[in-house]
């Protein structure tokens, strides 16, 4: 009908026509979807999108309408059901699945059609989420997730009980990662369904069997990624309880990193993915090789070190031994003799030279003394001689004096000694005069 209308419309007119058509055709619809982009404005109106995998629908829940739902005794306009406010006014959050009822309309300003909500209720899934939260709290209270009860995994376990689907991607990933790791182990696969109605029962049975066998060092429970519905079994209470009760430590790697199930939380160790589980179990062969290399190196070093030390000791001892050898001793004695001899010679030399010196000194003294004595005697002699000369009776003769003697040789000193007539000798320098005394006079 609109197609035949050739008149040119303004945007507003067209939008208004669309709005009327939509409101007429969808006066009251029920839509199920997951909340996304939830926001409440300051005015109190709530906006969000309802979405499923392929589409999304903008929704607005005006404040006035919310009041109807909030009010005690409100009721469903179609079924007459009286609202239970806790159920019909769920805690909104992105991801919550809800059923909304209302009219489809157009928000002209944006040219966008939207659902004007009259009331909202959580769907079964939403309730399930609620139930999940309750179960989680209950299990937490029962100590399922307590860190104190978590057991450490043995490094490089030898026996692994692997609980998973034999045909899933998980076992491929796990075994692929396992290959370059560990030093060989035995993996006993317990094939189970990992989704669907019987999955929980099978997983619980496998956990029970593995525990009864008491063979494995560790139980590994893995499953590849999937929707939350696919992973639901791992949120099953019976599975969590079986894990909680396991005597053998349990390693869980379920879904992707973001998926955390109750089984993950209850397990002793949680791996983010099945591959991660394998890497948690075993060291890589390369690392182990490195460890051995390192030990090997230390072994070499310490052993070589010990040998070298021992060698040093031997060398030092043999040096000592050589020191005490007879040959060395003889040589040492000879050396000592030589040294002593040298010293002796030095001493003697010293003594001799000292003696010589003393002798020289004494000789010198002696000769000095003698010289002095000679000199002195000379001097004395001279003196005596002089004195002698002075007393030479002949000395005055040279100056013209004469010496009178009796014929007997007696010196006449005084006139009284002479008598008249007496002959006397006059001694002159060059001879004797014989004279006679003829006169005697006293002076």
């Amino acid at each position, binding site marked *: 009908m609109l197609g035949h209308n050739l008149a040119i419309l303004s945007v507003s007119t067209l939008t208004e026509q669309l709005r009327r058509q939509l409101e007429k055709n969808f006066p009251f619809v029920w839509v199920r979807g997951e909340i996304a982009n939830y926001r409440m404005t300051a005015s109190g109106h709530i906006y969000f999108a309802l979405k499923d995998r392929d589409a999304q629908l903008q929704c607005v829940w005006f404040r006035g309408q919310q009041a109807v739902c909030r009010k005690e005794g409100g009721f469903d306009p179609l079924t007459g059901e009286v609202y239970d406010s806790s159920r019909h006014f769920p805690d909104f959050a992105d991801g919550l699945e809800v059923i909304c009822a209302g009219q489809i309309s157009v928000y002209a300003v944006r040219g966008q059609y939207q659902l004007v909500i009259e009331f909202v209720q959580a769907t079964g899934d939403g309730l399930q989420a609620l139930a999940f939260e309750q179960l989680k709290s209950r299990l937490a209270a029962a100590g399922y997730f307590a860190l104190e009860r978590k057991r450490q995994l043995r490094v490089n376990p030898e026996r692994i009980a692997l609980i998973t689907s034999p045909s899933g991607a998980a076992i491929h990933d796990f075994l692929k990662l396992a290959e370059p790791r560990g030093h*060989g182990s035995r993996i006993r696969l317990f094939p189970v369904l990992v989704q669907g109605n019987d999955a929980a029962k099978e997983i619980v049975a496998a956990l029970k069997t593995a525990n009864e066998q008491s063979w494995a060092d560790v139980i590994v429970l893995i499953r590849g990624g999937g929707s939350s519905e696919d992973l639901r079994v791992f949120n099953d209470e019976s599975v969590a309880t079986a894990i909680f009760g396991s005597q053998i430590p349990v390693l869980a790697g379920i879904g992707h990193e973001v998926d955390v199930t109750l089984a993950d939380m209850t397990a002793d160790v949680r791996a983010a993915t099945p591959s991660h589980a394998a890497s948690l179990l075993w060291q890589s062969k390369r690392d182990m090789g490195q460890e*051995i290399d390192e030990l090997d190196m230390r072994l070499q070093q310490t052993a070589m070190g010990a040998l070298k030390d021992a060698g040093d000791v031997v060398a030092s001892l043999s040096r000592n031994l050589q020191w005490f050898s007879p040959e060395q001793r003889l040589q040492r004695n000879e050396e000592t003799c030589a040294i002593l001899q040298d010293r002796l010679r030095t001493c003697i030399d010293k003594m001799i030279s000292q003696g010589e010196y003393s002798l020289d000194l004494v000789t010198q003294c002696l000769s000095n003394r003698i010289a002095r004595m000679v000199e002195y005697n000379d001097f004395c002699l001279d003196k005596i001689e002089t004195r002698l000369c002075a007393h030479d009776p002949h000395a005055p003769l040279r100056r013209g004096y004469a010496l009178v003697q009796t014929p007997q040789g007696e010196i006449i000193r005084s006139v009284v000694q002479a008598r008249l007539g007496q002959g006397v000798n006059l001694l002159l320098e060059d001879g004797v005069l014989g004279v006679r005394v003829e006169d005697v006079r006293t002076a």
Partner: protein
Amino acid sequence: MGDAMAENANNAGNFASFESTLARLQEIVSTLEQGNVSLDTGMQLYKEGMVCARQCRQIIQKAKHEISVWQSGEESPFSLSTD
């Protein structure tokens, strides 16, 4: 069955010997590092340590995970390619 058991025993022996061999190697190294052993003992330990290291390497080189499946109360070989 007999073969499987022998193989198991062999494997178990291998596993045990890897763990204990590595532990023994570690023990030897720390004993030697403490340095209060006689040279004679030291050389013996050194030789033993070298053997341990070689054995560990061999075990790692040869190591493969053995996979079996437990079904209907029985253990049977398992291969991924069969699915």
